[in-house]
């Protein structure tokens, strides 16, 4: 057997193990969802080519350990026939993670399942200076931990009060985590201090008479990482409400990292080095 190109194998989702000529195969999974028939195929492949078990990664992917070097092409072929692909490793856009989102979860404020699929289609395995993690979480409960990602998206909701519908029951005041709502039951008055609102959507979700109307939006976090260096992604721009603006921001962020990042430098370190104002200005330019 000739020279083994480990970088090329890694690019294709095969990670070298400590055991000679054994590889862990990462499967491309989007938003933490996989159809049952495909899961069954992974079960079969792990028995046929691996040691009959899989490893669940910390970012919603599945790996099949102990694939032999000589089986690499065969298992790739079988994956493809089942409608599966290897995942991304190395310096590129990785698995796009997501919670169940607004199509399933009562707390969800945005449809992260669709967003994850879209982002995966557009950006999967795109080459960058270092690994780049995109994570989507549909509300402030933050089950998918937006701030741990190089670019994290969190669902938010801007509430608007409709006086004509309000019954002044006081539920929104009781639930508001920042005391931005004051309900005077006797006087039938409501005070909403919008500057205190963190866009959690609890008032909208709970209102018994739909007197709070919500507009869904995206809260973005830049430069998070949770490996050798731990930094939480920072919210450097205000919440945005248009999907098109989100698309432009994600695109621009990746371009910015490609342009300014040094090889092997995580995005958060790039931002620390060049200053996040430079990114903010680029994003503002992209949104014009």
């Amino acid at each position, binding site marked *: 057997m000739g020279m083994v190109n480990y970088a090329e194998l890694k690019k294709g989702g095969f990670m070298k193990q400590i055991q000679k000529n054994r590889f862990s195969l990462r499967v491309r999974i989007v938003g933490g969802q996989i159809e049952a028939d495909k899961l069954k195929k992974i079960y079969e492949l792990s028995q046929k080519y691996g040691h009959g078990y899989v490893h669940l990664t910390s970012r919603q992917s599945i790996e099949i350990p102990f694939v032999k070097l000589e089986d690499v092409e065969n298992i790739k072929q079988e994956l493809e026939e089942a409608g599966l692909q290897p995942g991304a490793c190395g310096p590129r856009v990785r698995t796009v993670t997501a919670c169940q989102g607004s199509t399933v979860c009562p707390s969800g404020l945005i449809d992260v399942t669709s967003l994850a699929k879209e982002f995966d289609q557009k950006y999967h395995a795109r080459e960058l200076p270092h690994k780049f993690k995109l994570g989507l979480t549909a509300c402030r409960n933050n089950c998918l931990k937006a701030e741990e990602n190089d670019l994290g998206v969190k669902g938010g909701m801007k509430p608007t009060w409709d006086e004509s519908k309000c019954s002044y*029951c*006081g539920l929104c005041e*009781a639930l508001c985590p920042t005391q931005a709502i004051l309900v005077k039951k006797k006087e039938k008055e409501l005070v909403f201090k919008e500057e205190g609102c963190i866009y959690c959507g*609890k008032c909208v979700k709970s209102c*018994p008479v739909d007197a709070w109307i919500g507009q869904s939006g995206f809260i973005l976090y830049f430069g998070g990482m949770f490996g050798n260096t731990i930094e939480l992604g920072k919210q450097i721009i205000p919440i945005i409400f248009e999907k098109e603006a989100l698309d432009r921001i994600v695109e621009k962020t990746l371009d910015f990292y490609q342009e300014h990042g040094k090889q092997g430098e995580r995005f958060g370190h790039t931002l620390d080095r060049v200053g996040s104002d430079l990114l903010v200005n680029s994003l503002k330019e992209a949104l014009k």
Partner: protein
Amino acid sequence: MSAIKANSYVDITDVLCPITFVKAKVAIEELEDGQILEIKMNGGEPLNNVPRSLKDEGHKVVQVEDHGNGTYTVFVKKGDL
């Protein structure tokens, strides 16, 4: 304190999710449509979820009282769903 007269009362401060909602649901099912259930609950997760789940079941919160000690009383009118 309140002018609202409830037809029944349930205290769910002594149980955890999901029993909070189950206990409230059982109590409201004993009532006739339009009658009022008074529910004493803790703030945080129960207050976040129980009123919202009752709304999803077609019932309507009519008033909330904050006792200032982390507990709340929620008055819910039984819906006709």
